[in-house]
């Protein structure tokens, strides 16, 4: 559609994404957490009893919806391509680290933007770490870092993860098999059809716009082209207006919903996310969209995030409103070291880039 082409189109798609996030906020998703890829994958891990934290267990339809929206849109635009084979194990570990870093900060890059739109100054501080992480990843890309190319596979292979996830959502709704929080963030959610519908639209918009929080800044570093920021600006602007209009905007560090004020760990947590996402070729949202488009490599990254979410809660690595944990702080430092090792090891010049 012509209206979605060019720079104006990117902004419009961002505004559509923002309107979907706003709708989810109005209909019951947690404050400043209308849509958070990391938190919602962690909630799914809890619903499957991969972790036992009773306040964050719910099979979030939003994750299925975003992947599904991307699948439908990529099929409609003839962009669906089943691919695999680009260092899947490394991508799995990068997914785990992305998730644990996000849970030290308490949010993925998308939630960081939503928190910024709510006036949460901790998120503005975390942005420094996120951008620094991307810049570090870009440095290694310039040095020849690559996980290698992916190859085409049978079409159904690329859709397998999406199909299983959709089936699990149906099981969740029809049988109540999966755990569901009775209190805490996991108990706060929009009605399923609204959540699914909004996420389908959001996923479709993200597929068309190539929305990626890490890729936008990485491309700006290499091309000086900042047009990819327009989608993010659209989401931010809608949520900023909504928060001001609904009286939820408060420009503070203290008292923000599901957030802590330990600035150094907010920076380092998001440094891990920015670095790992750049090495994996996209932020958590982008990994969902790529999964929908048929990338099994991205699906493996999402599985890594699922396991990372379980680890973060089973071993008390995830932060809470009270602050970070000793384990979370130690693992954050270890992950930064590991990311440097992964980046350096994959920098050797290949015969064919």
């Amino acid at each position: 559609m012509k209206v979605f082409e060019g720079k104006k189109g990117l902004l419009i798609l961002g505004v559509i994404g923002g309107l979907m996030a706003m709708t989810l906020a109005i209909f019951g998703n947690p404050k400043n957490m209308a849509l958070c890829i990391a938190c919602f994958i962690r909630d799914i891990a809890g619903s499957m009893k991969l972790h036992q934290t009773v306040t964050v267990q719910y099979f979030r339809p939003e994750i299925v919806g975003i992947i599904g929206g991307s699948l439908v849109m990529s099929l409609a635009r003839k962009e669906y391509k089943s691919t695999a084979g680009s260092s899947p194990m490394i991508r799995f570990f990068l997914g785990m680290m992305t998730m644990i870093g996000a849970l030290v900060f308490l949010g993925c890059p998308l939630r960081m933007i939503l928190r910024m739109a709510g006036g949460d100054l901790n998120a503005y501080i975390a942005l420094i770490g996120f951008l620094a992480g991307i810049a570090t990843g870009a440095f290694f890309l310039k040095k020849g870092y690559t996980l290698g190319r992916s190859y085409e596979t049978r079409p159904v292979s690329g859709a397998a993860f999406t199909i299983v996830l959709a089936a699990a959502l149906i099981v969740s709704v029809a049988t109540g098999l999966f755990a569901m929080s009775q209190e805490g963030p996991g108990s706060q959610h929009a009605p399923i059809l609204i959540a699914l519908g909004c996420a389908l639209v959001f996923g479709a918009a993200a597929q068309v716009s190539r929305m990626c929080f890490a890729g936008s800044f990485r491309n700006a570093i290499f091309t000086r082209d900042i047009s990819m920021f327009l989608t993010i600006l659209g989401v931010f602007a809608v949520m900023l207006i909504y928060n001001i209009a609904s009286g939820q905007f408060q420009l503070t560090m203290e008292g923000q919903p599901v957030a802590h004020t330990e600035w150094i760990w907010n920076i380092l947590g998001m440094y891990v996310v920015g670095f790992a996402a750049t090495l994996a070729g996209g932020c958590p949202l982008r990994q969902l969209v790529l999964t929908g488009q048929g990338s099994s490599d991205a699906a493996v990254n999402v599985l890594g995030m699922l396991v990372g979410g379980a680890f973060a809660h089973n071993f008390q690595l995830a932060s809470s409103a009270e602050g970070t944990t000793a384990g979370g702080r130690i693992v954050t430092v270890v992950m930064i070291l590991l990311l440097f090792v992964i980046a350096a090891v994959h920098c050797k010049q290949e015969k064919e880039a």
Partner: protein
Amino acid sequence: MPRKKEERVVVTFHTTAAALKMETIAKRDGLPGKLISAPREMSAGCGLAWSSPADQKERIQALLISNRIGSEEITVLLC
């Protein structure tokens, strides 16, 4: 005033590393052009692409082969 669009030859790659290698080779060999975000009409990815004036297509193809850079698609676009 908006920039006037012109025909450019645009190359997309399987990996970001390949796009960055293309930039290095192009600078070394004096090939006019620059890295751009992969155009949405060419790629479903959010990666990088190489863009040169349209008359450089054959030279680019030769550079890709001689330097063993794996490209995904080469197209002339108005951009």
